[in-house]
C-alpha cells in the first residue's frame, strides 16, 4: 500500500471510528435515566468538538506564545530578547503604522462605498440593481494574490523612454509626464494607500451585499412615517435607515477589519514589503521562511493576536447586547 492508499485507509478508519464513537456515546447516554440523559447529551456532541478546537487552536496559540520567548529554532530560552529586538528596531513601528493605515482606511472606505452603492442601487429598477451589484461584487470572486497580480499591471513602472506596460504610467506618459514609480513612493505612505485600494476594490462588494440586505430589511412603515412627517431623502437615510442597520454596519466593519489585520497576499504580490509598505503578516513570513527565526516570527503572531483581541471582544459584546434586546 503506497502513501496515498495508506492515507485513504487512515481517513476511512478515522471517519468510521469517529462515527462509531459518537454513536456509542449516544447509546450510552440514552441508556441513562432521562434526567441525566438530557443533562449530558449536549456535552456528548459538543465535548469532542471543544477538545479538538482546544487541541488545534488553543494549544498551538499557547505554543506560539512560548516560542516567542525562545531563540531562532525555538529551543533556548531568551526571555524578552525577541520583543526587545523587534520593538526596539524602528522598522517594526513603521510596519505597525502601515497596519494601522490598512485597518483604518480599508474598512472605512469599503463600508462607505458599499453603503453608498447599496443605497443608490436600492432606487434602481430591479434589473439594473442586479447588474450594478453584480459588477461591484465581481472582484470578491478573485483571490487576493490574483488581485495583486492584476493590480501590478496597473502600477507597473518601466524606465522613462521604454514601453510603459502599466496602466497608470501609460496615462501619465501620454499626458507628457515622466512615469512615476508608484509603489516606490512612500511619501505620505502613498504606496501603502495604493495597496489598500486593491483591498477596497475586493471588499466593497462584500460590504454592499450585506448592507443592501439590511436596507431591504428596514420596515417600510418607518420610512413612510418619516416621509409623512416631511423628512427629506437625506434625513430619511441618516435618521431612519442607518440607525436601523447600525449593527450590520458594525459587523461588516469589524469583519473587514479583522481580515485586513492579517493582510499578506496583496503586499507580498506587489512589493514584498519593500519601500516602507511592510505589514505584520509579511514580516512574519519573512522571519519564518527567509530568516528562519521562529522566535521573532512568533512575536509577530503574538502582536497580531493582541491586536485582534479588542475587536473580537467588541464584536462579542455587540452580539450579546443584541441577544439581550430580543
Amino acid at each position, binding site marked *: 500500500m503506497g502513501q496515498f492508499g495508506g492515507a485513504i*485507509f*487512515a481517513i476511512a*478508519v*478515522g471517519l*468510521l*471510528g*469517529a462515527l*462509531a*464513537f459518537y*454513536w*456509542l456515546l449516544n447509546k450510552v447516554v440514552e*441508556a441513562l435515566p432521562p434526567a441525566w440523559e438530557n443533562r449530558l447529551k449536549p456535552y456528548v456532541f459538543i465535548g469532542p468538538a471543544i477538545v479538538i478546537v482546544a487541541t488545534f487552536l488553543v494549544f498551538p496559540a499557547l505554543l506560539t506564545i512560548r516560542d516567542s520567548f525562545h531563540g*531562532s*529554532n525555538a529551543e533556548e530560552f531568551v526571555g524578552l530578547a525577541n520583543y526587545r529586538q523587534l520593538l526596539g528596531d524602528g522598522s517594526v513601528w513603521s510596519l505597525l503604522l502601515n497596519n494601522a493605515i490598512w485597518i483604518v482606511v480599508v474598512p472605512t472606505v469599503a463600508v462607505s462605498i458599499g453603503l453608498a452603492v447599496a443605497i443608490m442601487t436600492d432606487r434602481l429598477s430591479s434589473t439594473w440593481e442586479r447588474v450594478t451589484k453584480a459588477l461591484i461584487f465581481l472582484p470578491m470572486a478573485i483571490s487576493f494574490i490574483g488581485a495583486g497580480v492584476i493590480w501590478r499591471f496597473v502600477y507597473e*513602472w*518601466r*524606465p522613462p523612454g*521604454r514601453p510603459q506596460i502599466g496602466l497608470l504610467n501609460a496615462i501619465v506618459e501620454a499626458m507628457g509626464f515622466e512615469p512615476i*514609480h508608484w*509603489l*516606490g513612493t512612500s511619501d505620505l505612505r502613498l504606496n501603502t494607500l495604493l495597496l489598500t485600494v486593491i483591498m477596497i476594490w475586493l471588499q466593497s462588494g462584500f460590504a454592499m451585499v450585506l448592507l443592501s440586505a439590511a436596507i431591504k430589511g428596514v420596515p417600510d412603515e418607518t420610512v413612510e412615517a418619516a416621509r409623512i412627517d416631511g423628512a427629506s431623502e437625506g434625513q430619511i437615510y441618516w435618521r431612519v435607515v442607518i440607525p436601523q442597520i447600525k449593527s450590520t454596519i458594525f459587523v461588516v466593519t469589524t469583519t473587514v477589519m479583522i481580515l485586513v489585520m492579517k493582510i499578506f497576499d496583496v503586499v*507580498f504580490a506587489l512589493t*514584498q514589503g*519593500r*519601500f*516602507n509598505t511592510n505589514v505584520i503578516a509579511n514580516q512574519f*513570513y*519573512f522571519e519564518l*521562511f*527567509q*530568516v*528562519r*527565526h521562529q522566535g521573532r516570527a512568533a512575536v509577530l503572531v503574538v502582536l497580531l493576536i493582541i491586536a485582534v483581541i479588542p475587536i473580537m471582544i467588541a464584536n462579542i459584546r455587540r452580539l450579546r447586547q443584541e441577544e439581550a434586546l430580543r
Partner: protein
Amino acid sequence: MRSLLAHSRLWILLVAVALAIAACADDAEDVTDEGPDDEDVEEPEDEEPDDEEPDEDAVDDEPEEDTGIEGEAVSIMTPFADDEEQANFLSTIEPWAEEHGVEVEHEGSDDFETLINTRVEGGNPPDIALFPQPGLMRDMADAGDMRDLDEVLDLDAVEDSLIEGTLDDGTYEDEVVGLMYRLNLKSLVWYPVPEFEEAGYSAPETWDELEDLTAQMVDDGNVPWCIGIESSGATGWPATDWVEDIMLRTAGLEATDAWVEGELEFASDEVRGAFEHFEDITGGFSDEYVLGGNTGMVTTNFGDSSEPMFEDPPACYMHRQAQFIQGFFPEEVQENPEEHVDFFPFPPIDEEHGNPALTAGDIASLFTDNPAAEELVQHMATAEAGEPWAEAGGFLSAHEGFDTSLYPTDIEQRQGEFLTEASFARFDPSDDMPAEVGTGAFWTEIVDWIAGETDLDSAVEGIDESFPE
C-alpha cells in the same frame, strides 16, 4: 429498558464491532503519530548503519548486484521546477535507476526551501534532497536531520575528484553532509557580440579596463549596464553577488571567509570597499550607467533584466550574471547563442588575489538510511553521473577532471575551463552566512541602499546588527 434487553445479543455484537473499529482507529493514529516524531524513529535507525557497516570501504567494494536494492524506491526533492530542468536532472539518475531496478520518485519545486522545511519538520523527509543553498542544509544538519556522508562515500577519493574547495560547500562542523552536484558559475559578464564589436568595444581583462570601457560607453551616449535585482521574496541577491564577486577580488579568500563567519564586519574597510566598488562601476546607480537607474534596478526582475541588451540598438551593453541566465535570453539568442552573445570573466581587481570564481550550485544531502539512496549518492559522486546533463547543456560539473569537450557550446566549454583555471572557487558567501544575514538583512539593506532609502553607513551597520549573537 425492555427493548434494550430484548436486543441484548445484537447490542453486544454491535458494541464489539464498534470497539474493534475504534481500536483500529487508535492503531492508525499511533502510526501517524509516531511517523513525524524524528527523534524516536530515526535515532535507532541512524545507529544501524554504524553497526552493520563498521568498515566504510566494504560498502564501496561490494559488487552492486548483491546489495539487494532491486525493487526499492528512492525519493528525491530538488529545486528543479520546469520540465526541461527536471528531464535533464532525471537523465543523470535514470540510467542508474534502470540498471539497478530502483524506482526514483522525483519531486521538483520552485518553492523548495519552504517545502523541504515542512517535510523535514513533519518527520517525512525525502531520501535525498538537492539544496540550492548550503545555509538551509547546514541548519538541518545542525538539527541532526542529516546523514554524515563519510558513512556512505569514500571521501578522500571524492575530494581528489572535486574542484578545490567544493567539498567545503557541503561541510558542516567537520562532517560532510552535502555533495556538490551541479555547479553554477557566477563571475561572468555577458555582452551582445555583434553590437559590442560594431561600437568598437572590446572585452576588458582588468578592472581598470572595465572602468575605462564603461566611461567610454557613457561618453558614447550608451548605457553600459543592465541590472535587475528584483526576485520576489529574494529581491537583492543579484546585488549581493556583485559585492561578493568584488570582495573575492579585492580582499581574497581568507578575508571573505572571515566575513562569512562574522569576524570581519560589514562596516570594515574591506567589505565597505566592495560596496563602494559596486557603486562606482555603476556610476552611483545613475540612469546613465544602469538602465532605469536605481529604480530600474530594484523593480526589474533578474530574469527579465538582460533582455534590453538584445534590442536593436541595445538598450545596455553588459550584464553580470551567472551562467544560468542563458536560459532567460530571448529565444533567437538561445537558438543561436554564439552569434549573439558572449561573456568575459568578471575582471580581476587586485593582482594578489588573481581571478577567482564565485560559484553556486546544487548540493545533494542524504536524510535516510535507505540503502538504495546510499547507492544513488555514490553514483551521484562520480563525474560520469553528470555527463548526460552536461551534454544537454546547462550543467557545469564540479569534478576537476571533467571532460569539458562534452559541453555542447563553445561558451560552456570556456566556462568549464575558466572554472578549472580560476585561482580559487568560492560558493556564494551570503548563502553561507546565518540566514538572518545572508537571506535577511544583507538582501533588504542592499535593496534599501540601492533604492536610496538608506546610506551605505547605516546599511552596513544594519547588516552587522542582524548577526545572531
